[in-house]
């Protein structure tokens, strides 16, 4: 039998046959490793989760016309979107605003892409349904009050193509009839508009006009977003990109705070694990003073004593880490499902990292107790204690 085999036989025998004591240390390490791997998973997943959650609060970037630098139309928007990673785009809502008359009252109408508006502004509350067909409209709550109209009513929109002047005594207008299918409640200025599809607006105004603003909801980090605004403004003629500061900043503030909290908790838990392991190991060394004295009396060098105890500690660290990596993922999954109601993908890299960190933490925790083991006097075994 080789020395190494005997070494492993001794340390595994110590762990297996002296279960009760080592179980405490193992438990401490496993709990520490669980929280470590769980929190690290959450730490890396939180931006994605939070981003998704924040996308509920509406657009975080807008595109505006860059006056005098080219047209701002759907082609410009497509060009800008091609600069953003497709899987990060949550919603795109182009808006073109015109003033029309409904029941002789001047009303602001917004032409948009209904599906895009729905995706970019998930918080919009609709009484009724979103317009799906031609000549259907969505009425802002305030406009609904002004017109005393509601779901199911039919409204006629009049658009002035050209004002009456000396040459044309009669002003030219176009007219379209719309059916109200929903009333929009947001609590904000969105309620002051009437929403129709871009195609309907173009039918009303005849020549295709330019867009006024495009709202984008993008699932990306603050720095990525900043990069996108820069490249779009630089590379796309006719468009300027801006971040909606109110949304992006609160998102990144919450994120930074949450991540530092997670980091802090992880460090505290690791420190506690270390203290627990160090305490257990100190108790173990005290408990095994006689055995250590005996081993020294049999000719064990300080180095072999250190390696035997370290070996036990590191083996515990490895097993605890392995347990913790698995449990930690389950823990992170549970948190994710309960808090963010979405699941997390397992990160294979986390397994070796958790195991290595557990081994390191245990090793560190063992240094002092193991050093004290070498100070035990072999003569103590001859004393009939």
């Amino acid at each position: 039998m080789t020395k190494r085999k005997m070494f492993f036989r001794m340390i595994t025998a110590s762990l297996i046959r002296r279960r009760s004591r080592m179980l405490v240390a193992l438990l401490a390490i496993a709990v520490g490793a669980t929280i470590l791997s769980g929190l690290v998973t959450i730490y890396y997943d939180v931006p994605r989760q939070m981003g998704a959650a924040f996308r509920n609060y509406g657009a975080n970037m807008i595109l505006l016309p860059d006056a005098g630098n080219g047209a701002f139309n759907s082609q410009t928007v497509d060009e800008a979107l091609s600069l953003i990673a497709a899987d990060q785009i949550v919603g795109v809502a182009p808006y073109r605003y015109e003033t029309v008359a409904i029941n002789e009252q001047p009303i602001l109408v917004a032409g948009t892409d209904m599906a895009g508006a729905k995706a970019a502004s998930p918080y919009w509350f609709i009484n009724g349904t979103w317009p799906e067909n031609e000549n259907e409209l969505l009425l802002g709550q305030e406009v609904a009050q002004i017109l005393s109209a509601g779901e199911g009513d039919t409204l006629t929109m009049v658009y002035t193509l050209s004002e009456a002047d000396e040459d044309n005594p009669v002003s030219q207008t176009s007219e379209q009839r719309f059916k109200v299918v929903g009333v929009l409640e947001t609590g904000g200025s969105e309620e002051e508009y009437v929403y129709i599809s871009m195609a309907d607006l173009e039918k009303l105004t005849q020549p295709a006009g330019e867009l006024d603003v495009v709202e984008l909801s993008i699932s990306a980090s603050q720095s990525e977003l900043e990069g996108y605004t820069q490249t779009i403004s630089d590379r796309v003629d006719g468009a300027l990109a801006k971040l909606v500061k109110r949304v992006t900043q609160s998102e990144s503030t919450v994120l930074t705070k949450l991540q530092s909290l997670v980091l802090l908790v992880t460090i505290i838990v690791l420190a506690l694990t270390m203290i627990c392991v160090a305490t257990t190991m100190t108790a173990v060394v005290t408990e095994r003073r006689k055995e250590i004295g005996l081993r020294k009396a049999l000719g064990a060098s300080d180095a072999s004593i250190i390696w035997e105890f370290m070996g036990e500690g590191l083996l515990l660290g490895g097993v605890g880490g392995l347990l913790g990596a698995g449990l930690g993922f389950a823990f992170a999954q549970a948190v994710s499902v309960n808090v963010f109601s979405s699941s997390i993908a397992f990160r294979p890299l986390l397994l070796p990292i958790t195991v290595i960190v557990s081994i390191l933490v245990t090793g560190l925790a063992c240094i002092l107790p193991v050093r004290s083991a070498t100070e035990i006097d072999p003569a103590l075994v001859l004393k009939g204690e």
Partner: protein
Amino acid sequence: MSLLELKNVSKIYGDLHALDNVSLKVDTGEWVAIMGPSGSGKSTMMNIIGCMDKPSKGEVLLDGVDISKESAKSLTRIRRDKIGLIFQQFHLVNYLTAVENVMVSQYYHSMPDEKEAMQALERVGLADRAKHLPSQLSGGEQQRVCIARALINYPELLLADEPTGNLDEANENIVLDIFSQLHKEGTTLVVVTHDPEVAEVAQRTITLGHGKIMKDMINENFGR
């Protein structure tokens, strides 16, 4: 030639002379019993001879090497290479089986060899108990495991401090039989004991009192 020589050795704790100017020679192959009342310095002497402690004064020559001048590290090496230790409290590693306990000694000395360890257990009549843990062995059996462990590396000097102190008559006889066999094979034995019967079977009996050698006599009846 003497295997062990103590020259004016003293061990002083504060103003207590646990050993007081002791001089002593033990020849290779000799079987020496050390007697004396409690507190007379027997264990102190064993610790010094066993390279686990250093004298306050004097020289201790083991195989011609003055171990009173060696560093703790080389004392460990000398202890490992030359000395077999047997204690009153059996001192086995409680989570290792009998054969593994014997192998621990091989492990620190050179190479663990399960077959050889089994042979050592056979020699003390414990082959069928090899896979038992110390808690599953009787006191006498445990002490025999200790003897097997002390013998496994063929030490030049076997030191035993009260080896039969916790044993009944029958087990005491088994242990003494093993000692006498070892003596026949040429092992040098130094055995501390309170028990006159254990001292009687040795070749020579040294009696300590207050840290001094009071009597040093050859046993006329030795071997009979």
